[in-house]
């Protein structure tokens, strides 16, 4: 089967752009901006530019085999692909939670490879990351978990526990919980929350970061279909209302189409489709898995 993107798919045009320098990237972006859905933020540099990203964990298989794509500010992008296609590895490599072997990542205008540990932390602070497993600290309260979103931008130790946080931070954390509809469980321990509630607290923690970009790795895969739908809708609404950029992975093709402006499909570490979601339906995406 052919795995090349259909003609007219935006990124096809600069997959063969060899210049990976900054000027090249922004030229490529300029030509893309005309096609992409335009919003008021589209004028700034793209939030994420990935060029020639490669990663292998062992000698035999390339988990990421030269991945190129660009996410302009304000766009929602869904990343799909079979188990083991490399989606999580791609997201983690973008944040340098794992070190890629080769390639360039520009995130919010910063070259990820050149960052020192401290600068890397400062950059990560601006990016909300929601995991498949909520990854809350189980023995701490929901409010404390949300406060942790403010760790990088506050004085050391203040947001460690809600009991020692300043009022302004506690208020902000409660407001974040209220935005995900969970103001009433602020004091409850994280391990006493349901799966859907936990994932919403994790979203609140990401909002607490005051992020510009949200990254989510299968944010609702561990939830039942109805709470999954509910959490995904809430998440996408928040993203849209705040005008944030979103990059998320999903195995739910209808979510990918409904909640993203654009869908990127990954297969054995390479991009095999990159198209606006308005041009796609579940059946075409489903065919990519065969």
């Amino acid at each position, binding site marked *: 089967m052919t795995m090349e993107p259909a003609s007219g798919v935006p990124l096809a045009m600069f997959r063969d752009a060899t210049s990976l320098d900054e000027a090249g990237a922004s030229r490529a972006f300029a030509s893309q901006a005309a096609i992409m859905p335009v919003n008021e933020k589209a004028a700034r540099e793209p939030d994420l530019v990935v060029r020639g990203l490669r990663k292998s964990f062992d000698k035999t298989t390339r988990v990421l085999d030269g991945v190129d794509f660009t996410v302009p500010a304000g766009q929602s992008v869904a990343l799909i692909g079979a188990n083991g296609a490399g989606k999580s590895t791609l997201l983690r490599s973008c*944040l340098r*939670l794992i070190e890629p072997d080769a390639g360039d990542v520009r995130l919010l205008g910063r070259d990820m490879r050149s960052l020192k540990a401290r600068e*890397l*932390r*400062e*950059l*990560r*602070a601006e*990016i909300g*990351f929601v*995991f498949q*497993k909520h*990854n*809350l*600290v*189980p*023995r*701490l309260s929901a409010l404390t978990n949300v406060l*942790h*979103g403010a*760790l*990088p931008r506050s004085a*050391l*130790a203040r947001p*460690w*526990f809600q009991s020692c946080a300043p009022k302004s931070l506690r208020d902000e954390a409660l407001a974040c919980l209220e935005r995900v509809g969970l103001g009433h469980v602020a004091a409850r321990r994280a391990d006493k929350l349901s799966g859907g509630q936990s994932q919403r607290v*994790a979203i609140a*923690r990401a909002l607490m*970061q005051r992020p510009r970009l949200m990254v989510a790795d299968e944010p609702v895969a561990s939830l039942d279909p109805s709470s999954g739908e509910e959490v995904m809708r809430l998440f996408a609404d928040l993203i849209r209302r705040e005008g944030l950029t979103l990059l998320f992975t999903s195995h739910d093709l209808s979510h990918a189409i409904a909640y993203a402006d654009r869908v990127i499909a990954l297969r054995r570490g390479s991009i095999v489709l990159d198209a606006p979601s308005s041009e796609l339906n579940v059946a075409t995406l489903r065919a990519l898995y065969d």
Partner: protein
Amino acid sequence: MTDLAQPSPAPRGLPPRFERPSLGAFAAYIVVALFFAWSLHGTGVSLGDFFGGFPQMGRLIGEMLPPSTARLDAVGRALLETFQMAFVGTVVGVLISVPIAVLATRHLTPHPVFYHSARALISFFRTVPDLVWALLFVVSVGLGPFAGTLAIVVDKIGFCGRFFAEAMEEADRGPQEALSAIGASKLSLVMCAVIPAALPSFINTSLFSLEKATRSSVILGLVGAGGIGIELKVAMDLFNYDEAATIILAIFALVIVVERVSDLLRRRIL
């Protein structure tokens, strides 16, 4: 029979009762048996002496009964001091153990040099027995409970440092990864994700340490490092067996109470 490499088919029927040992193994058995016999001789083990000691043991028990109540207040004070040594030693030891254990946790340590130094320190503190530490501290800070308390602190660092590091190594990595992705510093990571996850294990280890420290603080007195041990030694040396009996019973009661209370706390907290 699944051994396909066997050249001839195995004989049918029951296997032999005993495998015939290889020549090397046979020689090893002989050496161990000879060493055991030699050690019996070296330790002066003798059934005659053992049974011959019975009347003496009977006389001793006779003299112990009834336990003396003459120096109850002194025994009580020494007992309190024993527990205070154990308590202070454990608390201080646990507090010092936490940062050392963080350095000795592979994924939290700031640098491999810290990792290896912390590991080396912990094993050194653990492998030297606490009685030896007590002797060293008696020489350096003088006779009395302070020397014993220091010995317990060092012993606790060796014990808790190791188990705390293990607990932190096993703590769920998910929340830690989430906080790294947020951009939290390593110190925040330890305080917010690692210690909360490892806390039940920390508490369990600390309570167990307190029980252990109570028992060892009794012994430390024998080398003059404070506590009730010295009372016991003096009573035995002066043939005041009835007083020794009181002290032994007091120690027994203290250890039981500490174990019971720590059991209770464990169940309440965890």
